[in-house]
């Protein structure tokens, strides 16, 4: 950690005589950096950037003690600001779209039900997919199924968290627990990692 990175938390401390100057300096730097990171995407005008940086500044000041000096202070700050920015952009994008509405409109999970092997699909692959369907039905909790369903339909974790009244971390954990449970069951059924890769033909998801 260089001297400037050590100095930032001290300069931003409530009792620092240099606080106002440090706040202004950080704010201007973050505006420039967040603008550079977002590449002028839709909905990222000046008002949006100002709001993002304002929210990020509050978060940074509240969490100064979490800066451990493993990176430059400004890099740490930009990472926080970009999380604020993307969380807000996703919220706007998915606003007014609920899991229930998607289901009702039939946008969600227009899936093929087990209808016999696709002629272009190997029997082994079909068996694996059928087993997966069965495991999802029998081994996951309703919450885990809802989470997976939303995730596989492209809904971001931020929005799933809002709709399921969880935190983003809790959504990730829910998904991780579901994946671990399914993986264990797959392994019990004789499908190890290599077997799965072979059956799927090296598909990258």
């Amino acid at each position: 950690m260089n001297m400037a990175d050590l100095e930032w938390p001290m300069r931003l401390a409530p009792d620092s005589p240099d606080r106002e100057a440090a706040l202004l300096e950080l704010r201007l730097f973050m505006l420039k950096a967040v603008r550079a990171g977002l590449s002028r995407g839709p909905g990222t005008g000046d008002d949006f950037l100002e709001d993002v940086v304002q929210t990020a500044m509050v978060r940074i000041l509240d969490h100064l003690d979490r800066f451990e000096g493993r990176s430059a202070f400004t890099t740490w700050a930009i990472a926080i600001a970009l999380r604020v920015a993307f969380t807000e952009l996703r919220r706007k994008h998915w606003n007014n779209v609920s899991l229930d509405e998607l289901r009702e409109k039939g946008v969600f999970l227009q899936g093929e039900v087990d209808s016999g092997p696709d002629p272009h699909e190997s029997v082994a692959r079909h068996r694996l997919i059928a087993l997966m369907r069965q495991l999802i039905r029998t081994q996951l909790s309703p919450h885990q199924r809802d989470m997976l369903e939303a995730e596989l339909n492209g809904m971001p974790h931020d929005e799933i968290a809002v709709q399921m009244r969880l935190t983003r971390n809790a959504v990730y954990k829910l998904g991780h627990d579901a994946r671990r449970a399914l993986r264990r069951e797959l392994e019990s059924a004789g499908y190890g990692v290599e077997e799965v890769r072979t059956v799927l033909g090296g598909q990258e998801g």
Partner: protein
Amino acid sequence: MTLSDDQIRSLVHALSITQEHEIDCSECLDMVAEFAERELARRPIPDALETVRHHLTRCGECLEEYQALFTALKRMQGHEENEDRPD
């Protein structure tokens, strides 16, 4: 729940890279700044930071934020280099 075959395949692929212990999005945020700086400078990634790389393969939101961070750092670095360059 009815999932399409493609969705099931995506899920099975996700299972194939699932690890017993994975960091969550907050832990990723705590470490992603160092990870991005090392990637930008092409410095080695220590084992402890490989958990970030793995999380980014599983979490689309953290990946999107990381890519923006990387872009920002790269552009800011280029900007600084231009400012330092004598006329």
